[in-house]
């Protein structure tokens, strides 16, 4: 049998009504746990995996796929509506998505996230099905120096997208990098900046920080403005559905997000966040409506959401072709596969075609089920915003802390939530952008470790960083992204850019 007939057979099995029902339950459960801020798809799947043990392999697989997609989509919903990112890969979604929701465009934001996720998931799953063996060869070429170059590119492009003041953007970024130093140094096991506090040894949890910065910081800021800002949030303005213009502005970002997210997800040390960062930076660069960025641009939701989902499917490439669990979620999935006696590895496609294609078919069905479940619910979700403000924010903080407690029931973690919430409030008050500090916390350790690994392998020879063609090209792109705006500003051509550089000059 060839790939097509295996896939078809898998799809036929998965479209049995009972299977569809399992998919529905999986998606619902996954969404229910995944909406909790701080609880990403990995923990969602880990928590709910035992539920799937009680079904036969086919049903278990499809429910599992549903939980996985549900857990991922759940994070985006809260990002958009409540400005509380459920996981690090939906932080970028909160930037534009929540601005849209506040202007009564929560419906289109949720819709473009759902449809974008669906399309990206669909394309990426098909790419996974038919191109995985080739893609993984390319992904393996990425060593420490190539990753370091990729991080540098991400830093440069993302920083260009940060707010209106170079001083405040950089300060925020470096605060993030400083926080990133806290904890045990991966490469030598030395504890940095933990001052003997055991809870600090593992560093700052990105999701705790993101939830605190976005949800708590903002609740404090809004509350501090007192009663005069009552009308800031408009629940629904215009249609809850995407209009023609929204579609026109969304489809390209969906495709671009997929193109960015999938290969980065397939790289063993890529990480879904980087795909969302790069996608956001790309959309900001390419948009015809630059003035809307930061104020609720639909491209800024469509692209990163597509990138997030595509990268999730990308993670399956090394998992299914090499047996490499390259993310926490993939590691859980590996554990999930083992209950069927399935050992992912280079021979998996050859030795276990039925299960592999069954999984791929299940992913396709679960992806579609997610769309079916969520599109009609959008109307209901946006009604959340019509809840009176005092109940709404009380509820947001309830759920924000619930997620933190659920992930790690310690008072210390709640203390961090409070401390970073206050920091987020002060930063908002003084006009510091919030995203760079989170980006610094995520990218800082990755860049540092990859650089040190690259230099260890080359025994201290810095030229190694440009000796590989891929690394050299990526660093070249980063240099261009850094220098070109400077030149354009010097020539006085880029009005928009010099405006971005802010009020320092």
């Amino acid at each position, binding site marked *: 049998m060839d790939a097509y007939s295996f896939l078809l057979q898998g799809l036929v099995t998965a479209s049995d009504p009972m299977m569809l029902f399992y998919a529905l339950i999986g998606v619902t*459960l996954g969404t*229910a*746990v995944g909406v*909790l801020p701080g*609880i990403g798809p990995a923990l969602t799947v880990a*928590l709910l995996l*035992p539920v799937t043990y009680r079904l036969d392999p086919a049903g278990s697989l499809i429910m599992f796929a549903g939980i996985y997609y549900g857990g991922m989509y759940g994070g985006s919903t809260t990002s958009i509506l409540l400005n509380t990112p459920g996981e690090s890969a939906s932080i970028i979604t909160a930037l534009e998505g929540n601005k849209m929701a506040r202007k009564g465009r929560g419906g289109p934001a949720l819709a473009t996230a759902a449809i974008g996720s669906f399309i990206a998931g669909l394309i990426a799953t098909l790419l996974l099905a038919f191109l995985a063996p080739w893609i993984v060869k390319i992904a393996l070429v990425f060593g420490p120096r190539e990753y370091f170059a990729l991080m540098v590119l991400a830093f440069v492009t993302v920083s260009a997208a940060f707010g209106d003041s170079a*001083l405040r953007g950089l*300060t925020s970024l*470096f*605060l993030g*990098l*400083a926080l990133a*130093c806290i904890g045990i*140094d991966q490469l*030598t096991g*030395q504890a*940095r*900046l933990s*001052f003997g506090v055991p809870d600090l040894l593992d560093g700052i949890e990105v999701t705790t920080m993101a939830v605190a910065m976005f949800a*708590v910081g903002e*609740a*404090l800021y809004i*509350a*501090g*403005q*007192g009663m005069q800002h009552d009308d800031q949030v408009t629940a629904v303005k215009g249609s809850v559905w995407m209009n023609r213009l929204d579609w026109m502005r969304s489809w390209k970002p969906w495709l671009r997000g997929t193109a960015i997210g999938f290969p980065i997800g397939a790289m063993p040390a890529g990480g879904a966040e980087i795909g969302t960062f790069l996608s956001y930076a790309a959309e900001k660069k390419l948009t015809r409506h630059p003035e809307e960025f930061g104020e609720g641009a639909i491209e800024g939701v469509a692209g990163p959401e597509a990138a997030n989902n595509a990268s999730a499917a990308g993670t399956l490439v090394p998992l299914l072709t090499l047996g490499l669990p390259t993310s926490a979620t993939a590691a859980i999935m590996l554990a999930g596969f083992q209950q069927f006696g399935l050992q992912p590895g280079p021979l998996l496609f050859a030795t276990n075609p039925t299960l592999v294609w069954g999984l791929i078919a299940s992913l396709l069905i679960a992806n579609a089920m997610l769309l079916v479940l969520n599109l009609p619910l959008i109307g209901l979700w946006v009604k959340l915003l019509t809840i009176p403000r*005092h*109940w709404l*924010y*009380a*509820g947001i*903080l*309830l759920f924000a*802390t*619930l997620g933190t*407690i*659920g992930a790690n*029931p310690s*008072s210390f973690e*709640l*203390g961090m939530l*409070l401390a970073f*919430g*206050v920091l987020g*409030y*002060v930063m908002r*008050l*003084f*006009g510091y952008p919030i995203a760079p500090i989170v980006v610094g916390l995520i990218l800082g350790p990755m860049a*540092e470790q990859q*650089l*040190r690994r*690259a*230099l*260890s392998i080359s*025994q*201290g020879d810095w030229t190694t960083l440009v000796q590989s063609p891929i690394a050299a090209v990526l660093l070249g792109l980063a240099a261009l992204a850094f220098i070109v705006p400077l030149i354009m500003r010097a020539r006085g051509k880029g009005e928009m850019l010099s405006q971005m550089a802010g*009020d*320092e000059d």
Partner: protein
Amino acid sequence: MRPATQNRKRSRDTAALFIAAGLVVLGLVIIWDSARLADLGGYSGLGPASMPRVVGFCLILLALWTATAALRGEFPERPPQQAAPVLWIVAGLAAQMLLLHAAGFSIATGILFAFTARGFGKRNLAMTIPIGIVLSFAVWCVFSQLLMLHLPAGPVEQLIFPRG
């Protein structure tokens, strides 16, 4: 949480000067801490202390830049802020943190809920605290009993689920 005090055209931004001072302190702490680390750079030449030193140094530079901007009054206008609502929410979060293990999820989170609502203008705590506790308990039931999340139990939870 400084209440904003600017309704005059200022040439100097004192609050922003405090930020600059904070950044200097933070940079120095990071550099001081890195001095304690063993030099285990090995073959890379970059040890665990290298990155903190760079970051600490940059923070001090940014502090100088911030101080210059503050002296020239270049920070944007801050929206007027009221301290009381902010303090209510901070108090709610602190209460939840302190009560979580002693009183369980529902009571601790119920208080957070009520205090937050208070911060947003719903003053009647006698009404909002019970509402918060009931709501938190419902949430606790769903996530802890049905979705198998590990949430701390207290008297309320143990009353209904004795072995919770």
